[in-house]
């Protein structure tokens, strides 16, 4: 008998919920801190306080939700069970403690007594995650493009977090003089090698599934897969050996890869059957639009060598592309998890809700527009260097975050009372 992929193989709901709820808390925490960074719009983009906030957001929100989603999706997509569910719990607690200690150490500029312990905890937790993924791959039989993306992105994650840990040690012992080179390699491997490659890979499952797209070719995403590997490899070798021509080639190939992936997403959207621009579709459109914009900003930075563009690039990529992509999918994945846990045993017995019923659509729609307006204001503030506007923009973005949290709560408690009554009815025989 075929295994029930979503249950027998994937970790239980409560495990994935750990990651999603922690992600939401870190998202709220970052949103709260962001307005206090208004003064940084005039500053240097590599300050430790910015690095602290960026790590808090990327690790605590973006990667936290990705890890949770991967535990749910990997067994379904690869048709094999996760190697160890226990690993996933251990990873979670080490990861959360690591983030808190590490970002506090970074913010406090305490590079020797606090930061290394957080870095070590995070490094081990990431190694547990990649080990779990690699060991899962031992039994794989279906090698499609998604499987290849997940595997290679985890190889880059291993390299990226190892470089990150070397940076942490280097802050104490100072054995490698060019720390900026290490930082660049760390950013390339973790953000482009892991986060963006993972989004490209799982996007090939999630986007057609939620938009009901069919009949599109996959050539563009296959091209993106190979060009991003070449790009990142060239960038790493070029940076390490200080060969600028290779580094430039790496940036070029990686940029081409992103545009191949964007073209693939366009093909998926152009063949979608679900034409309604609901909150998910709007979030996806905004995420890809901000990704395109961020690359033009990066290009401007490379040409003009002006630090403001790098700050702007990071801000647009993180709070635009990543936010819209992750939030859009929280609205889809979390209701499924709750629905599965709460309602799937009752199918055929009571009237069960649709997944969309488990999201407050009006709030989700308002949240999208509020976040977009706040983001545009904050981006404008960085360009014109006016801290007050940045503060207003990020406070508006914070309101958007609160609405996301409200919807997460809405989904988590959905139907609890009704099901309690149903179960009581079963006990006293009225149902």
């Amino acid at each position, binding site marked *: 008998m075929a295994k029930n992929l979503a249950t027998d193989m994937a970790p239980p709901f409560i495990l994935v919920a750990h990651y999603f709820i922690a992600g939401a808390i870190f998202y709220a925490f970052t949103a709260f801190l962001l307005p206090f960074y208004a003064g940084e719009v005039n500053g240097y983009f590599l300050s430790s306080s910015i690095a602290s906030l960026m790590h808090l957001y990327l690790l605590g929100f973006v990667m936290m939700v990705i890890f949770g989603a991967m535990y749910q999706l990997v067994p379904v997509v690869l048709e094999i069970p996760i190697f160890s569910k226990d690993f996933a719990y251990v990873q979670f607690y080490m990861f959360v403690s690591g983030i808190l200690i590490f970002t506090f150490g970074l913010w406090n500029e305490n590079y020797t007594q606090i930061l290394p312990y957080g870095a070590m905890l995070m490094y081990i937790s990431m190694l547990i995650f990649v080990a779990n993924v690699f060991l899962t791959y031992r039994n794989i039989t279906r090698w499609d493009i998604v499987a290849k993306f997940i595997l290679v992105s985890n190889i880059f994650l291993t390299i990226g977090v190892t470089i990150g840990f070397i940076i942490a040690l280097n802050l104490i012992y100072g054995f490698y003089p060019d720390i900026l080179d290490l930082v660049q390699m760390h950013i390339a491997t973790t953000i482009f090698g892991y986060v963006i490659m993972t989004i490209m890979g799982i996007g090939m*499952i999630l986007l057609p599934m939620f938009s009901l797209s069919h009949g599109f070719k996959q050539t563009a995403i296959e091209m993106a897969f190979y060009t991003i590997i070449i790009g990142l490899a060239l960038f790493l070798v070029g940076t390490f050996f200080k060969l600028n021509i290779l580094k430039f080639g790496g940036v070029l190939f990686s940029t081409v890869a992103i545009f191949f992936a964007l073209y693939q997403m366009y093909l998926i959207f152009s063949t979608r*059957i679900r034409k309604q621009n609901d909150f998910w579709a709007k979030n996806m459109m905004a995420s890809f639009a901000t990704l395109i914009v961020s690359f033009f900003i990066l290009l401007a930075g490379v040409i003009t060598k002006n630090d403001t563009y790098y700050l702007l690039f990071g801000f647009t990529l993180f709070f635009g592309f990543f936010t819209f992509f992750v939030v859009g999918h929280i609205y889809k994945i979390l209701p499924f998890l709750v629905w599965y846990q709460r309602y799937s045993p009752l199918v055929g017995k009571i009237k069960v809700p649709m997944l969309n019923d488990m999201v407050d659509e009006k709030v989700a729609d308002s949240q999208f527009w509020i976040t977009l307006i706040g983001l545009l204001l904050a981006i404008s503030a960085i360009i014109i260097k006016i801290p007050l506007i940045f503060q207003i923009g990020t406070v508006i973005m914070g309101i958007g975050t609160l609405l996301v949290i409200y919807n997460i709560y809405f989904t988590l408690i959905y139907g609890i009372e009704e099901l309690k009554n149903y179960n009581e009815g079963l006990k006293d025989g009225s149902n």
Partner: protein
Amino acid sequence: MAVTEEMVYDAIKTVIDPEVGFDIYSLGLIYGVKVEGDHAHVTMTLSTRGCPLHEMMKQWTKEAVEKIDGINSCEVEIVWEPAWNVTMASDEVKKALGAF
């Protein structure tokens, strides 16, 4: 009374895809039904390969058919060829999805 294919289709119409909000028959996911005595065989597909609802849809279909008086067992076979597309769905579904 012998169970007819129509009766099996009617049972299948009670199975709803919670993501799309339509029953799987109207979505065009059912490719065929055969009834031999007290055994039914349903051939169906899913709108996306890698869908987390894969096994549940299969199970719900089996359970819905096995509720019919006169059916003792139902085998549900998931196939990927021909791949599903919206032309297989009912006009009502196409209209609701905005495919018209």
